[in-house]
């Protein structure tokens, strides 16, 4: 009887492997140690109309004639101890936002030939960002009543959208327009049939106003705003602002954010009064703890005004960028020289200020897919998506960022795991914003503990399930001990225990 069933399965595999299409599929995976004959035996107890095995990932695809039949099979297979998972295959669709300005191709930065390839990136599962990832826009404030932003605003427990450091109150309403423009690029409401699309569909915008109606502000407010953003849970900060010279307080604030896992995208600057980009990146973009973003035009060339230099990381669209602005004069008639507004609520603007939020929005998506990442990881993931990567030039950095490439590669490590635990990077450089990853293969459903010991065998920290990211199959560690202090350079041992088994090994930490 068993042979007949197996024969039937083999015939089904051969006859249908190539013709599986829509209809109702279920995906079934058995636990690692289940012999293939046992797997086939269990499958033979059901009545799929077609069977195929995705050998690389040991996942069976079973086709059923109807949804009830498929759901019944899911329940049936989940009743076996040997089953690791079994569920009905979801229907997915190509994602094309219905925002009119996106549809009429006004947003070349998202879907143009030299844009960031966001149209294709959105087709990747998980590329919509997360409402739990907040982008702090430290700028002139945000028109939080804007039709394309109001649903995307971060809200504090007290009901505020951020803070106004210029007027020292809880109302960060934009009286200039610049911050509203920047916010729309990063995370305008998308697929809402209104206005434009933003890079990150689900991320939230925290409005921190430090620039006044003329677009200028105080460095002290900037430092305070950065700390405020970190304290209130922002994972990404957008700084479309800067100055020519180094500032210690600004550097310290950025370092604080960096050491607390917050990614900062900063604009490289727009040159001097001549409109020609200067050969140096402005601060804070020039700091090692920030990510320097320059501007590219729709032809793929560096924008003429975009500052450049060895501290430049990447380029992003920065000319003719359509985004949200207040639909009434935000600064009043006396401020027209500075105001950025349009009665339609949307306006094209150039600048590295506009390029920066493309990177910030992408960073928020990266962190939604890989919450284990430190800011150094995020920076490197975006750099590697650059059109010129690995080549680097002072004028273009690593080239134009590509959201599709970036998001596609976020779980590239899964293909490289060939043993129980792969630990990387090796060596880990502390204070680089990069986390150490313990990647498991096969993926455990629970991690009891990952204990890390110094070279003498003393335990320095115990990581538990809360440090485990099932979607990436890894536990991440920030290089700090149980007291939250950086560990010394040296070799460290680990002992990992999951529901599947135990593993131990070592890795190196350098300073």
């Amino acid at each position, binding site marked *: 009887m068993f042979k007949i069933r197996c024969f039937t399965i083999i015939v089904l595999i051969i006859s249908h492997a190539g013709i599986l299409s829509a209809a109702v599929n279920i995906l079934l995976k058995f636990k690692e140690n289940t012999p293939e004959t046992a797997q086939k035996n269990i499958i033979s107890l059901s009545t799929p109309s077609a069977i195929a095995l995705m050998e690389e990932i040991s996942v069976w695809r079973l086709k059923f004639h109807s949804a009830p039949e498929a759901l019944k099979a899911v329940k049936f297979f989940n009743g076996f101890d040997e089953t690791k998972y079994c569920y009905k295959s979801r229907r997915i669709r190509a994602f094309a936002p219905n925002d009119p300005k996106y549809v009429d191709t006004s947003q070349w930065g998202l879907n143009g030939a030299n844009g960031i390839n966001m149209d294709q990136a959105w087709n990747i599962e998980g590329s919509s960002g997360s409402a739990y990832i907040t982008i702090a826009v430290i700028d002139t404030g945000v028109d939080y009543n804007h039709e394309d932003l109001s649903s995307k605003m971060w809200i504090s427990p007290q009901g505020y959208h951020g803070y106004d450091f210029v007027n020292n109150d809880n109302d960060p309403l934009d009286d200039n327009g610049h911050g509203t423009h920047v916010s729309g690029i990063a995370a305008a409401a998308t697929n809402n049939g209104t206005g434009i699309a933003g890079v990150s569909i689900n991320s939230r915008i925290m409005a921190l106003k430090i620039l006044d109606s003329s677009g200028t502000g105080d460095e002290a407010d900037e430092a305070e705003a950065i700390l405020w953003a970190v304290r209130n849970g922002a994972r990404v900060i957008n700084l479309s602002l800067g100055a020519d010279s180094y500032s210690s307080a600004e550097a310290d604030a950025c370092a604080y954010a960096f050491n607390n896992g917050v990614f900062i995208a900063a604009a490289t600057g727009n040159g001097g009064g001549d409109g020609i980009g200067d050969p140096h990146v402005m601060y804070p973009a020039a700091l090692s703890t920030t990510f320097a973003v320059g501007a590219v035009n729709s032809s793929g060339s560096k924008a003429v005004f975009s500052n450049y230099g060895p501290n430049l990381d990447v380029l992003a669209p920065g000319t003719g960028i359509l985004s949200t602005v207040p639909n009434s004069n935000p600064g009043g008639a006396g401020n027209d020289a500075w105001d950025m507004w349009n009665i339609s609520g949307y306006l094209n603007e150039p600048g590295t200020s506009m390029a920066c939020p493309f990177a910030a929005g992408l960073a928020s998506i990266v962190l939604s897919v890989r919450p284990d990442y430190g800011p150094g990881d995020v920076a490197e993931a975006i750099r590697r998506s650059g059109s010129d990567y690995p080549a680097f030039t002072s004028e273009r950095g690593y080239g134009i960022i590509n959201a599709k490439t970036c998001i596609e590669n976020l779980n*590239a*490590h899964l293909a490289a795991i060939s043993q129980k635990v792969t630990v990387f990077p090796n*060596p880990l450089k502390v204070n680089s914003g990069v986390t150490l*990853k313990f990647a498991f293969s096969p993926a455990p459903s629970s991690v009891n503990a990952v204990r890390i010991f110094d070279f003498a065998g003393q335990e320095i920290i115990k990581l538990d399930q809360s440090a485990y990211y099932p979607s990436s199959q890894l536990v991440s560690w920030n290089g700090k001990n149980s007291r939250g202090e950086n560990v010394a350079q040296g070799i460290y041992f680990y002992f990992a225990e999951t529901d599947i088994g135990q593993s131990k090994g070592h890795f190196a930490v350098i300073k």
Partner: protein
Amino acid sequence: MKNTKKPRNKHLRKKPVRFSLSRLILIAILLITAPLSYAGFFDVSPGKSGAAFMRVTLSARKLAIGGGGTALRGADFIETNPAALYDEPTSLQFSHLMYFDSLSLNDAKFTFSVESADSYGVGSINNFLCLGLRSFSSDEDRRDMLTGVKTGSFGISARSIFLSYAFLSGDYTAGLTVKNITESMDSNLSSAAAFDAGVIKDINENLSLGASAKNIGKKISESPLPLTASAGFAYRFDEFTINGDIEKTSEENKLLATGIECKMAPLLLRGGLSYQDILRPSMGFGAVYNNFILDYAFSFHKYLGQSHLFTLTAKF
């Protein structure tokens, strides 16, 4: 007058008492409290101090009795307490540790004595010296920060070269070690100079007390050296010796160790326990053949597994 010949059984020595017990205690307190002046000494922030390979026991006899031995004598305990060197015969010692996860460490020591005129210029004294080297090296896989793919390899090495000196001072022995510690990791190279100091006092023929301070020096690779203060006792019975030690390293938890060494001719059998967050049992033996001694120790770590340590000593 200091000793002019090398006494072989220090417990039967007759020598003038120039220093009172209270002075010895004072010195011991200084030895122990000097490290405590370091601001972070009492803090527990594990993994924060550098050159952790200096905290790994590299003598089979010492490991087998739990890793203590501050009040014990012999070349095996020089890195715990340099005073242990006093009265040691000329010897050459090699140790090889098969450590966790297939890593290994090595250690070599040469102990010898040099005669010199005493402070009165009428006799001679023996200066007990030891030149030593401990080393560690490993080739590691370099792995990409985002993908985990192996992209090459890099080297790690660490070594410590030291010179110890021990002398008799009144009714206790004292010792001093100067050392140079070097670490190389990938392209990062760092080194630091440090010294150790220690005393051992024989209270009577059976009981000895010891205290030491180790790795007194500046930072290595931006991290403090593993500054360590330890104190212990050893009590000798006819057929066995017991020891107990307490050790505190800056930023690390206290370590408690105890052990026993029994003579069961032709072997010396040893067992010990150490506790620093977890209990770590150890055991081993020593076998003597003419001028050669082979010591073996086995230590068990609940999570990281076993380590095996072999020490071969040749006495001249």
